[in-house]
């Protein structure tokens, strides 16, 4: 029976994982801003979080080391490459690259702030937990 704190932490954990993944995607875009034919991508955060939250409390994702292993119902939100979409571009360049460095930088900073917010939420959840544990003394 998951408690309220469990639920809160599960949410923060999923959201932090997805924020970290989005940070990777945006870093890839920035790194490839001069790569011919590279298409900028982004994470559909709302959909990814919704499916990750739907999977929380369900089965745990297991790594398959043999082709004969059965699928253990890996959480769909954590599936590799799920919810990653190509970004619509305003000004494509001649070499087929669709990265707009300014847009990517803005998203990168925004995502970093959101990540920090979630870290603060986790910190304060743990602090609340600590206070509750100490209150009996």
């Amino acid at each position, binding site marked *: 029976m998951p408690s309220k704190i469990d639920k809160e932490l599960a949410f923060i954990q999923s959201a*932090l994982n997805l924020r970290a*993944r989005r940070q990777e995607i945006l870093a890839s875009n*920035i*790194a490839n801003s001069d790569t*011919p034919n590279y298409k900028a991508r982004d994470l559909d955060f709302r959909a990814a979080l919704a499916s990750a939250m739907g999977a929380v409390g369900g089965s745990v994702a297991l790594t398959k080391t043999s082709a004969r292993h059965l699928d253990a119902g890996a959480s769909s939100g954590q599936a*590799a490459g799920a919810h990653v979409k190509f970004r619509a571009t305003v000004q494509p360049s001649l070499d087929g690259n669709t990265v707009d460095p300014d847009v990517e930088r803005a998203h990168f900073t925004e995502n970093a702030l959101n990540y920090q917010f979630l*870290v603060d939420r986790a910190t304060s959840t743990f602090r609340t937990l600590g206070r509750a544990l100490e209150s009996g003394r």
Partner: protein
Amino acid sequence: MSMNNVFHIAASALTAQSMRLNAVASNLANADSAHASTGGGYKAKQVVFQAVGLGKTTPWAQGVRMKEVVEDQRPSRLVYDPKHPLADPKGYVAYPNVDPVEEMVNMISASRSYQTNAEVMTTARNLLQRTLAITQN
């Protein structure tokens, strides 16, 4: 830890951009290396980038690497200078097909990309430090 991939992505971009800066430096350094008009002299070099995946489990994390170095196929610049030791019977000396304006633009672009990726690394480091400090205070 998925945030570590951000470091790898940014590091691959730093390497790639410094290679590009290297090519610019070679081109500019050799802009005045005269050679005989029959050919065989220095040709302007350009690096071509390519996106490269950072592992099967994280297909969204794409670093960048240098794919190849292409030589500019434009003809050499001919200068009429009969007193030059390398001059041909008509009095022409060939200079490399390096376009200094193009190289300066390339240099600024590479240095901006380098700065941006260094910034990405700093952000990733801050986020990781915040994450490590979740249970403190």
